[in-house]
């Protein structure tokens, strides 16, 4: 009983270490292939359209409601202390530093990341990746690199949109609906938000873009050869990417603060 338990733990640990090793190798080969010709600007644009443009609707929606709920909560909390004037700062800082990058990245994971895993997974199962190999075309370069580049560019852009929409969402509720002071809202933002906060948010979103595309492409690339394997891969990709985003967010925050 006991030895079986210990053996099980050992096996799981070995599996996890091997999996992590494979993920690191996957990322470093993809990175290496990024810089080798031919560069594929058209592929990158296509992926940017898929990851960025097609995620815009859901990101705007999330941003609007996040900003609105922050406006609502913030207004009533701050009013207890008579500092409704700081509402703009409270909304903007929460969104720019934390919620914008994290929520936008989670939305991209759910919408584009899972689709990426499924797409690459299907290509694996139907031997399209093998076909690329037989044509002496590196699948990492042809398939994965453009997605990673698109993630690095697309997620920060989405986060920028998220930030703007979120701040207006807070304004809508805090000022238009609940009657806070419009000038105070914008003034408090101007005086409280520093460039440091903005840069921090950008760094976060760039690294989240990498995490989403890396994890989701990896899981698709190593899909096991069955329809069930495809389902598992998609679920694992979304869960792992989301968890990594939150853990990495904590690390970055503790470093950036």
């Amino acid at each position, binding site marked *: 009983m006991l030895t079986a338990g210990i053996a099980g733990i050992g096996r799981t640990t070995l599996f996890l270490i091997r999996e992590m090793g494979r993920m690191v190798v996957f990322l470093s080969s993809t990175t290496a292939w990024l810089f080798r010709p031919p560069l594929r600007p058209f592929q990158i644009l296509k992926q940017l359209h898929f990851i960025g443009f097609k995620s815009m609707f859901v990101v705007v929606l999330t941003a609007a409601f996040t900003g609105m709920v922050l406006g609502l909560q913030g207004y009533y909390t701050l009013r207890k202390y008579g500092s409704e004037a700081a509402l703009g700062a409270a909304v903007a800082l929460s969104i720019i530093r934390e919620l914008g990058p994290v929520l936008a990245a989670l939305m991209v994971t759910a919408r584009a990341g899972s689709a990426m895993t499924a797409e690459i997974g299907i290509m694996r199962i*139907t*031997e*399209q990746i*093998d*076909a690329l*190999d*037989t*044509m*002496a*075309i590196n699948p990492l370069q042809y398939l994965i690199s453009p997605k990673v580049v698109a993630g690095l560019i697309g997620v920060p852009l989405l986060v920028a949109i998220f930030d703007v929409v979120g701040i207006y969402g807070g304004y809508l509720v805090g000022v238009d609906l609940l009657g806070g002071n419009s000038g105070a809202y914008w003034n408090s933002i101007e005086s409280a938000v520093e460039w440091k906060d903005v840069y921090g948010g950008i760094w976060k979103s760039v690294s989240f873009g990498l995490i989403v595309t890396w994890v989701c492409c990896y899981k698709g690339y190593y899909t096991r050869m069955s329809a069930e394997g495809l389902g598992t891969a998609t679920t694992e990709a979304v869960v792992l990417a989301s968890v990594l985003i939150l853990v990495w967010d904590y690390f970055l925050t503790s470093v950036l603060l």
Partner: protein
Amino acid sequence: MSKVSTIKLVGVEKAFGSQQVLRGVDLTIPPGKLTTIIGPSGEGKSVLLKHMIGLLQPDRGEVWVDGLEISRLKGKALNEVRKRFAMLFQGAALFDSLTVFGNVAFPLREKLRLPEPDVTRRVEEKLAQVGLSGMGHKFPAELSGGMRKRAGLARALVMEPEIILFDEPTTGLDPLMAKTIHDLIVAMQRTFRFTAVMVSHEIPEVFAISDWVAMLKEGKIVAMAPSADFQRSTNPSVLEFISVGGPAPLASALPGS
């Protein structure tokens, strides 16, 4: 096609997990000829083909292509070898994201970097030969299984390489179309003199078109002979296998019957 290539497998063994698929395959593919591999379903014929082009690595044994042992090659060296091959996969392995035209044009554009008018000319020609004229604009998802197979065949033939591997080129086609495809493969092979390896269940048709026939059973090549001699084989597994498929041309030819 100035050069003809031989493929030689020596003692190739391959297992997936606990399932031993190949148990010591010794096989020499004659250069510039059409060799057909027959054998029961699930015995490892597709696995065998994938070893020839380095998609799978043997657990033990060697794979030689013209005096070069390829089973341990990687990266660039392996790609150099693969440039001399084309492969038709059992499931066609067409790229979902490209049209039929795009699929057939893909190796010409990516590998040979031909000018676009040449690409169009060669693709249209091949599509006509496999009976897919006017279908170039369709996506693989819009094709029937047999049409996909023929598009995959066009993609393999369009490169005019030194070696072509065909995994069941006629499975899923009606008898008339199967004959057309067989005739096309034979005509191409006679014209360009490439080394052809075909996996097929079309017995007895394959005897008429192949130069050599080999049979894979229980992980080994149990018989290999020029097509005419193969039909007169006295090997019991061969007899059993080929007499179910066709009109049993052998029973009367058996010595002692």
